């Protein structure tokens, strides 16, 4: 009897863990997304600050480029179905993300491709090429924001 009770408890915990994302509060999804994009923004800002100032520290640029690339590949998990704009959810993500999923995916893919290129160029080490590809990377950010993110001001 005790074994059955313990087994039922373990099964319940396992089932809960497996299905937790389905029942996650919408605000949790939005919070995770905001945190992830803030980190991404900080890395990209650090890259641009170095490029603007001329103090290009290649080891740092390469590290940030790798982190940006990883963020670009992780971004696909940041927009679960129940995390869009709704009462009680603070998010700059527009409902168009979920209304136009193919277009949004296209924008995400562009960002991911350019993040790959940027990382390759960072590893190659030519500051001029790094500057050019960083700008193009920013361009993919802008293109997505223009279509799928609320304006900040």
């Amino acid at each position, binding site marked *: 009897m005790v074994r059955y009770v313990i087994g039922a408890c373990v099964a319940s915990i396992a089932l809960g863990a497996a299905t937790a994302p389905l029942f996650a509060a919408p605000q949790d999804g939005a919070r995770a997304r905001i945190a992830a994009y803030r980190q991404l923004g900080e890395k990209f800002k650090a890259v641009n600050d170095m490029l*603007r100032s001329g103090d290009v520290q290649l080891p740092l640029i390469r590290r940030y480029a790798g982190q940006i690339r990883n963020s670009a590949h992780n971004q696909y998990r940041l927009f679960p179905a129940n995390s869009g704009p709704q009462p009680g959810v603070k998010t700059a993500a527009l409902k168009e993300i979920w209304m136009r999923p193919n277009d*949004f995916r*296209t924008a995400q893919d562009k960002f991911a491709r350019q993040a790959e290129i940027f990382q390759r160029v960072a590893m190659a080490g030519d500051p001029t090429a790094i500057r050019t590809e960083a*700008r*193009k990377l920013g*361009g993919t950010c802008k*293109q997505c924001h223009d279509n799928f993110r609320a304006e900040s001001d």
Partner: protein
Amino acid sequence: MAAILVITAVAVTAWQTIPAEGAAPPASRTESQKVSPDEAGGIIFERQQIMLQLEKDADKLGSIVAGVLPADQLAATTGAIAKGAKESIAAFEPYAPGGRAKDTVWSDWADYSQRMQSFAEKSAEMAKAAETGDVALVTSMMGDAVPCKQCHDVYREKKKPETKPGPAA
């Protein structure tokens, strides 16, 4: 004879510098600074991020001088504004029309860049003053050191209603 040659040379030079009738006046900073379309989006994005950060820092400074936030953040916040002001000069140098920046930023570059230079200098002075911790002194300097509205009134488009375009390109 020499006088005729000089007058002729002056006349020819003047003729060459007068724009043809109907032509636009020479741009102060346009064609020679053009960037590739691929890079233009990134340049616009970069300067938008600089300006957004400046807005946040200016708001924070306002809260500090109003007594809403502690004054121990005064030096860091004014320093951030000075840094942003300096960065924004270079951010607008490449000719990349778009965002909310009017084309006059580049066609009136002399005036625009002078305003930005003044912003950078005065905000740096304010940041220096903030090191003393004197909130009243910083407050008295804010009007000149954070002249956002004066420049925006001339060089920034008004915010359009939130309508997103069709399928992404």
